């Protein structure tokens, strides 16, 4: 059982690292005007394969060892966290696709998204870190930090709806990328919620 749990932790760590890199790379591509959809798709597929491995391992552990208490909560959480990481990969690919469709965005104002992406990146990092070290205190900071993401997303989208000086292409790209960042931040929160569940047994 302990060996199985170690394998599960290791697979989750691999997924977390790949998922985080995918998101960072997608945002970097947005700011630098790069096209990376093929690489983002590969990462998303790789995350999906790792997710399937985690599913199989978790089911095997459940069937063979009938885990209870912390072990049970840990395995259940691994399944949810694995899904969260797969979503990171998928949203990174969605951002990459937006860049493909939008073409040249060099004239767009990217300040807000750059700032927000840095904020979301630290949320992803801390959600992964809190899981690795089962740091309930760190996990509890995520929900508050998500509020800024939601606020920014709503404010910018509202402004764009009511017209502005930007072009349709810039507006559309900003809205979609912001939307994906908002979703990514939400999944980081779900991961942190799972950490709290593992530590306390309480569902957030």
């Amino acid at each position, binding site marked *: 059982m302990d060996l199985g749990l170690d394998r599960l932790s290791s697979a989750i760590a691999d997924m977390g690292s790949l998922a985080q890199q995918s998101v960072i790379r997608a945002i970097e591509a947005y700011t630098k005007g790069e096209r990376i959809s093929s690489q983002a798709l590969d990462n998303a597929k790789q995350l999906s394969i790792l997710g399937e491995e985690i599913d199989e391992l978790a089911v095997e552990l459940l069937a063979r060892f009938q885990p209870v208490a912390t072990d049970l909560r840990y395995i259940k959480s691994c399944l949810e966290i694995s899904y969260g990481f797969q979503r990171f990969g998928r949203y990174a690919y969605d951002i990459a696709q937006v860049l493909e469709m939008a073409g040249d965005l060099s004239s767009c104002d990217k300040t807000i998204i750059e700032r927000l992406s840095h904020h979301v990146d630290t949320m992803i990092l801390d959600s992964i870190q809190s899981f690795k070290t089962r740091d309930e205190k760190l996990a509890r900071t995520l929900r508050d930090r998500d509020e800024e993401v939601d606020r920014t997303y709503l404010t910018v989208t509202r402004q764009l709806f009511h017209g502005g000086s930007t072009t349709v292409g810039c507006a559309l790209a900003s809205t979609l990328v912001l939307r994906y960042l908002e979703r990514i931040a939400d999944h980081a929160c779900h991961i942190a919620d799972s950490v709290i569940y593992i530590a306390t*047994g*309480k569902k957030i």
Partner: protein
Amino acid sequence: MHEVSHGAWTKGHVSLDGEDMYAPDKDPVKVRRKIGLVFQKPNPFPTMSVYDNVAAGLRLSGVRNEKLLGTKVQENLIQAFLWEEDRDRLGESGASLSGGQQQRLCIARALAVEPQVVLMDEPCSALDPVATAKIEELISHLKEKYTVIVVTHNMQQAARISDVTGFLYYGRLIEYGPTRDIFENPSNELTERYISGKFG
């Protein structure tokens, strides 16, 4: 039965409806009428038929009416999920049944005297998984009508069949609560380690 064992002693309290079951003035026979017992190893009376095993307790209580006895035997064999399988074997020795059937016969025998509580001590530990599943299904059915207390070392069995679980360790009640809480989020560290098999 401890009172007939030389040097046996009891400690602590067991109360039923507010009455101390270990009180010196408590009549053990009356206690046994309230609490039906089922043991680890199926122990039907070997010289008695299936029918007589179930009727034994009632006869001891003075029931002589054969028609009533027949009805009660049938009712309790039905309750113990044994009637359909053994209705044609009522005259055969209880010891001729399979292990799982013998255990269900013992349950029928315990139920026949209409106890308030059925106490089962490791009722499935001598049985194969199929017979175990039948007993567990029976327990789940019986708990609608009786208070069933099962002593088990099988964590999964406790998790499967009970509504509330008590964790006893060296005679001390360490934790008691809804089964789901005990197995998903126990509040005591000792419980957590024991049910996870991380002891010692």
